[in-house]
């Protein structure tokens, strides 16, 4: 359970990268990203708010979840893995923050 707190949001973060197209467009993931993004736009009714939830909410969730798992697992091997996941989550947060700022500034 303690591992899942970190793993689930991290997988969501990986999906966000693949769906958004950080490393190039992958149509299968992009389709699901578009579906969720359209759904969020409809539910939140505010483009900026839905962008912030999607682009900053998921990385923050991943950072918090991975930190929680990092401090709660006992094996050193697992600690290293969660440490790397925290690092990836922090870098991803920086990336999506910059993307959001640039996108908003140019719209």
């Amino acid at each position, binding site marked *: 359970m303690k591992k899942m707190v970190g793993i689930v949001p991290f997988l969501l973060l990986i999906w966000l990268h693949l769906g*958004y*197209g*950080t*490393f*190039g*467009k992958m149509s299968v993931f992009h389709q699901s*990203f*578009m579906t969720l*993004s359209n759904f969020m736009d409809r539910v939140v009714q505010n*483009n900026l708010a839905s*962008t*912030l939830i*999607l*682009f*900053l909410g998921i990385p923050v969730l991943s950072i918090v979840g991975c930190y929680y798992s990092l401090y709660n697992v006992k094996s050193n091997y697992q600690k290293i893995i969660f440490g790397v996941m925290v690092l990836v989550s922090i870098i991803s947060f920086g*990336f999506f*923050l*910059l*993307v959001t*700022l*640039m*996108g*908003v*500034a*140019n*719209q």
Partner: protein
Amino acid sequence: MYRKIKRSIFSVLLGLLLVVGVEAYASETTDVSTIYDNAVKENIIDPTLYPKSDWLDDEKKYMRPNYDFFKSNILDSVSYNEWLEMNNYGVMSDTKLPLLQNKNSNRRQARSAQDNINKFCKDAKAGDILIVSGNFPTGVIGHAAIMNSDNTVLEMSGGEGWKKGIPDNNHQYSKRTWIKNHIKDWTSIYRISDSKLAKKVARYVDTHYFSSKGTATKDIHIDYKIDSLLKNKNPNYCSKLVYQAFYYGTGDLPVMKPTIPWGVIPPANLPTTFSNSYKPTYIGRY
């Protein structure tokens, strides 16, 4: 008895918390003037370009509200000082010109809007880098474009729908139309010293990002998306297009600093991506 002790401990702690909180807030707000002085001492702000009264005015009107928005909606662990440092105290890192002064402010202007348009049209040349900085809610990000001939500007315009990607977003405008569209914000021109190389870059960007025949008819269509692949030409975004123009358009010359092919280049940081021997010089602000 036990309850009384518990209550008094709680009251003391609450009092301490309030005192510390108020003190922290007070020190943060009263130190704004010192922050400016330190930034001047560290040669970040040039007081002749950005006088203290103007900076304090912008701090109150724009920086503090932007920080509050940033803190409550994006990241609450960053202090105001750190945030100001991140935003280079509201000035361009190379020219030290203020980023937060828009043209609607009442401050003395050296030129009128029309003069600015005329001066821009006179000064801008093929291969020039155009960086727009204004009173964006995001503070320092801006927009970038490149002169793909002596008379035209090429840009990835961006716009609504950037999150999902915007198809066919590369646009060419006459320089007069382009500057008119951006006249409400400040546009800075940067230029590399080798004029032949600048022309070569302009020709490259024209034939690889707009019209393969080098005519006014567009036959290259590039989608807008802010991704991390710096060397991938499609999709593209404003500052990546300018970066690639110089990266690919200058052949084997070491014009750009060696970098990992992964990342995002903010428009305001474009001049820092050049190697020292080819660093573009600041021509003027319009």
